[in-house]
């Protein structure tokens, strides 16, 4: 249950590989009566909770379903407007399902290129000479480990804060990258990695780490 995702960022800051593994799905469904006791707003074409978190519904969660019908952006699957239903007194009691928003591929690319300047500024603002960029970024829910190769490629692993031995794992992923991506004649540098062998080997490496820990790889 330790590793949430692997990212590989090219020298120029583009995301060239991403793999999500066992990201927990956070969803809560509840029946509400009129008026709603949570505040919803429309943000980036999504219905987002902006105030009043309770019972697992947190600020920042998006509306996923209304009465069991999926919501795509602002509209229900059958074409009705989600906010209209929520604002209409007659549609209550209403069953709403909220969840933590899932990152889209575009958002991942955006985040990968956002990490690039952070990495550089961390080294520039260093109080000590010759500092590297960010190696570990810590938050209360995860720890991001980053390893930059001499050629400028960045390998990142998002893992649980308690997970250890991530530096060994990163080196191992680098090894897989050089074996299965770089030696693949159909792979061009700086382009997204679409190599089946790399995918399979990385997958089995992660499975092995989940099962037996990092010491045995």
């Amino acid at each position, binding site marked *: 249950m330790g590793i949430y995702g692997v990212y590989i960022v090219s020298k120029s800051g583009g995301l060239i590989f991403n793999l999500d593994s066992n990201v927990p799905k956070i969803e809560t469904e509840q029946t509400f009566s009129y008026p709603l006791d949570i505040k919803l707003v429309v943000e980036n074409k999504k219905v987002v909770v902006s105030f009043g978190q309770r019972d697992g519904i947190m600020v*920042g969660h998006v509306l996923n379903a209304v009465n069991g019908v999926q919501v795509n952006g602002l509209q229900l699957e059958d074409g009705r407007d989600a906010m209209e239903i929520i604002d209409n007194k007659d549609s209550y009691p209403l069953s709403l399902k909220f969840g933590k928003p899932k990152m889209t591929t575009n958002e991942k690319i955006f985040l990968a290129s956002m990490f690039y300047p952070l990495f550089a500024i961390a080294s520039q*603002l260093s109080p000590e000479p010759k*500092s590297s960029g960010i190696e570990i970024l810590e938050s209360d*829910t*995860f720890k991001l480990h980053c390893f930059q190769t001499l050629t400028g490629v960045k390998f990142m692993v998002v893992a649980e804060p308690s997970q250890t031995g991530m530096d060994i794992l990163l080196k191992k992923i680098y090894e897989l990258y050089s074996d299965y991506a770089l030696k693949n004649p159909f792979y061009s540098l700086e382009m997204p990695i679409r190599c089946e062998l790399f995918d399979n080997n990385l997958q089995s490496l992660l499975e092995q780490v989940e099962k037996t820990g990092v010491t045995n790889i």
Partner: protein
Amino acid sequence: MPVHNLYIFNRYGTLLYYTEWNRLKHSGITLEEEAKLMYGMLFSIKSFVAKISPLDIKKGFLCYKTNKYTLNYFETPTGLKFILNTDVGAQNVRDLLQQMYSQVYIEYVVKNPIINLNEPIKSELFKQKLDTFIKQYPVFNNNLKSL
């Protein structure tokens, strides 16, 4: 030398206070520009962390480490931000920042009626107390002795 420097920002990104103890490298830009760069970086890290986190965050960003230093981040619910750069090995810096907030900032800035809370702190008393406070910090002394 474990404790390098300290930045305090308010919630609008104004640099309220800056001080340094053992800083070996300067960024080559003025303090004003450096503060803006620092605040911008932290602002980006905060939104980065909020987006990339697989679970719901509570405290959010805590610290980052490079091979030479650790940047420790502490934010109060009012948006006041304390940034302390220390050695990589320094322990329990978050508790220290929390205490610095409650025992030094609250006591000598908030409780001082002539200080405007949104302007850089010029109080000599605060400066003194902060300095003594940091120097009490065990690691600060231990490493100086061992030099």
